[in-house]
């Protein structure tokens, strides 16, 4: 009975052919697909750098790379992953594609600005590739002065400008989402009927718009210091390197919430759909997203407890840092409560959601160690911190992103992927991830510092475990590329609503037509309506 479903003749993918129809498109869905291809390539590149780092760290002596090259490896791993994969990942791909259909709009508020954002992302990546082929950069993705402004002779300026330019791509995406969500909702779609995916992206856009300009001006200051010999952060002329850290972390802490909030939005949708139950405590989860966005801006100096800030301000920042942990805890509890008395099925998106639970719990809770002053003095800049932010960024943001990709893939291309292979990849990613990063917590508390390419012998066993785990994780990430490409041609036709989900985006054909809706939809009911007739048995396996 499945073969009765056929792909719609006319949809956004075959509405116009040739390079020009793609490169000059104003359709948010095509821009999302181009973002998907671009950031997947950058994710692969970042992964190669990570592999280099992990292979180097298998031996204490650090004999695979020269010290300089190792420093370039971890720096470029950081720059590529943060600026060119994690910041744009879920917002630019899933957000771009799904927010207009979710709120009943034909397109984002500013389609041309959306295309401009993509071009700016490419220009930023071009700057980075220039730096890469001109010999790389070795300042760490944090560009701390005075090392980045006068002690490093590698390509700091092109890389910093690459990050500066890709920052504007993030600002424009954020601006587009804010105006779209405010001004282009379908009639009857009040704020409290919005899917939580849209709430999460609204909070993310607030951070993108408020934080990114500050790191942009910080990069400009480092640029003028290096290019013209100005002395804003130069200690020999009275400048203060700690001022750079303040300005940098004012953006870079909220930036980690840019990475995790969209993933939280995806998890809210996936958990609700696969337990066929409305989300537990809708308004609490929605306001938690806003709370994370706002509190994210007042806590940044917990990255600087040992950087020489005053004892008094360290205590204030430590106190405020706990306020950010509470909304994340509330969200996690609400997701768990959603499962209670649900009708849960474990297709791949739900497996990724369970993986998200396991990893985000550990990632979030280890944040408490770093917010507590006493422990942070010991574990700051050690592998404990590396493990913490990888649990949040890779365990949280990438699991959420992959879960979302698996959940909406039928909507993107109209075809299903192999359920068996995708479950294998979800399990491989979960196992490989834990084997890679859990030993690093122990290494961190043992005192192994970050960014070391040679380390004392007693850390070797744990490092070998971590490198082995990285191999498994690598395979887990490569599998989806295979079965997603395979599904483009051979996947079975998915139809408009393969999972029986309840969003507006599931009521239009997949892949959707260019104008999304034939006529303006009007919304009446609550967001997560799972009455039996919606759960269409025909499609559920």
């Amino acid at each position: 009975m499945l073969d009765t479903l056929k792909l719609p003749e006319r949809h956004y993918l075959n509405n116009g052919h040739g390079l020009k129809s793609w490169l000059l498109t104003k359709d948010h869905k095509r821009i999302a697909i181009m973002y998907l291809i671009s950031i997947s390539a950058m994710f692969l590149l970042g992964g190669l750098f990570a592999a280099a780092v992990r292979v180097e760290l298998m031996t204490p002596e650090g004999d695979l790379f020269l010290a300089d090259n190792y420093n370039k490896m971890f720096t470029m791993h950081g720059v590529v992953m943060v600026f060119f994969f994690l910041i744009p990942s879920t917002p630019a791909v899933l957000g771009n594609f799904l927010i207009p259909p979710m709120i009943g709009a034909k397109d984002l508020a500013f389609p041309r600005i959306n295309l401009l954002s993509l071009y700016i992302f490419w220009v930023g990546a071009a700057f980075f590739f220039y730096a890469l082929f001109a010999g790389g950069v070795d300042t760490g993705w944090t560009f701390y002065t005075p090392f980045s402004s006068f002690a490093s002779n590698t390509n700091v300026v092109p890389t910093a400008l690459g990050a500066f330019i890709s920052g504007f791509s993030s600002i424009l995406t954020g601006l587009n989402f804010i105006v779209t969500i405010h001004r282009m909702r379908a009639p009857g779609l009040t704020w409290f009927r919005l899917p939580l995916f849209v709430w999460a992206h609204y909070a993310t856009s607030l951070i993108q718009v408020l934080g990114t300009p500050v790191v942009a001006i910080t990069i400009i200051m480092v640029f003028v210091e290096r290019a013209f010999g100005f002395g804003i952060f130069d200690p020999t002329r009275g400048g203060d390197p700690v001022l750079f850290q303040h300005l940098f972390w004012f953006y870079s802490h909220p930036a980690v919430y840019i990475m995790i909030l969209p993933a939280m939005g995806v998890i809210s949708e996936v958990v609700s759909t696969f337990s066929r139950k409305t989300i537990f405590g809708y308004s609490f989860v929605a306001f938690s997203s806003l709370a994370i966005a706002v509190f994210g801006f007042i806590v940044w100096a917990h990255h600087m407890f040992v950087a020489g800030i005053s004892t008094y301000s360290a205590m204030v920042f430590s106190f405020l840092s706990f306020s950010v942990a509470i909304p994340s805890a509330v969200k996690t509890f609400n997701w768990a409560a959603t499962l209670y008395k649900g009708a849960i099925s474990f297709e791949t998106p739900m497996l990724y959601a369970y993986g998200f639970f396991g990893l985000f719990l550990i990632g979030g809770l280890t944040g408490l160690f770093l917010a507590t002053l006493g422990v942070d003095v010991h574990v700051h800049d050690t592998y404990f911190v590396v493990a913490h932010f990888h649990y949040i960024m890779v365990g949280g943001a990438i699991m959420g992103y992959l879960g979302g990709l698996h959940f909406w893939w039928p909507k993107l291309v109209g075809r299903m992927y192999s359920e068996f292979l995708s479950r294998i990849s979800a399990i491989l990613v979960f196992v490989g991830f834990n084997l890679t990063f859990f030993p690093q917590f122990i290494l961190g508390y043992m005192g192994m510092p970050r960014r070391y390419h040679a380390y004392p012998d007693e850390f070797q066993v744990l490092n070998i475990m971590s490198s082995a785990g990285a191999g498994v994780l690598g395979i887990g990430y490569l599998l989806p590329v295979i079965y997603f490409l395979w599904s483009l041609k051979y996947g079975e036709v998915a139809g408009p609503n393969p999972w029986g989900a309840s969003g507006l985006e599931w009521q239009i054909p997949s892949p959707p037509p260019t104008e999304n809706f034939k006529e303006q939809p009007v919304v009446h009911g609550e967001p997560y309506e799972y009455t039996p007739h919606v759960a269409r048995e025909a499609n559920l396996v």
Partner: protein
Amino acid sequence: MSNAVAHAEAHGHAEHHTALQHHFETMQQQKEASTLGMWVFLLTEVLFFGGLFMAYLLYRTWYFEAFAEASRTIAIAPGAINTAVLIGSSLTMALGVRAAQTNQRTATVRWLIATIFLGLVFLGVKVYEYADKFEHHHVPGANFISESPWAAQEQIFFSLYFTMTGLHALHMIVGVAIMSVITWMAAKGRFDEHYYTPVEMAGLYWHFVDLVWIYLFPLLYLVERHN
């Protein structure tokens, strides 16, 4: 949230204005979206300049004598003239937007050209000031010369001076460029009382750039002028 569909009936004839883009229901919705978008952009500009003001605030508290000494070497007259010029350009800009609102095409073009002219005057004075600094070797870096005991910290003042006024001048140049395009569109009669959003958005941007200079002038030129 007003129901966008019902609102459109009240303006029947404005429904299919040539400038209405396909994905908006009504002109009103399109205008509100553009206005909100512009204001969110100005929000990013506030924080963009905010980082520089933070650096200025810190170093002024630490090295007040050096800032006062360095600020005294900058002539007040060009700064004051520039402030007046920029406030004048804000006036002509506001009148230009008003002319566009009331569908007076020639008045709009006249006021916009006046705004561009005043913007160019501002940039001209800036070029004169920068030339003066180069002469006195007050550009931070290798060939910075200053006999005052606070020579090192004065370099920080001048670093901030050049970064802040340079960034502001860059925004002026971009503003003049946008203004020229808008003036050309106005001359072609693309705007009327139903669709003048580009002029209004250019006005918001221009007023913001004037706003930044209103703060830059006292902070950089008048640090401590009394004896």
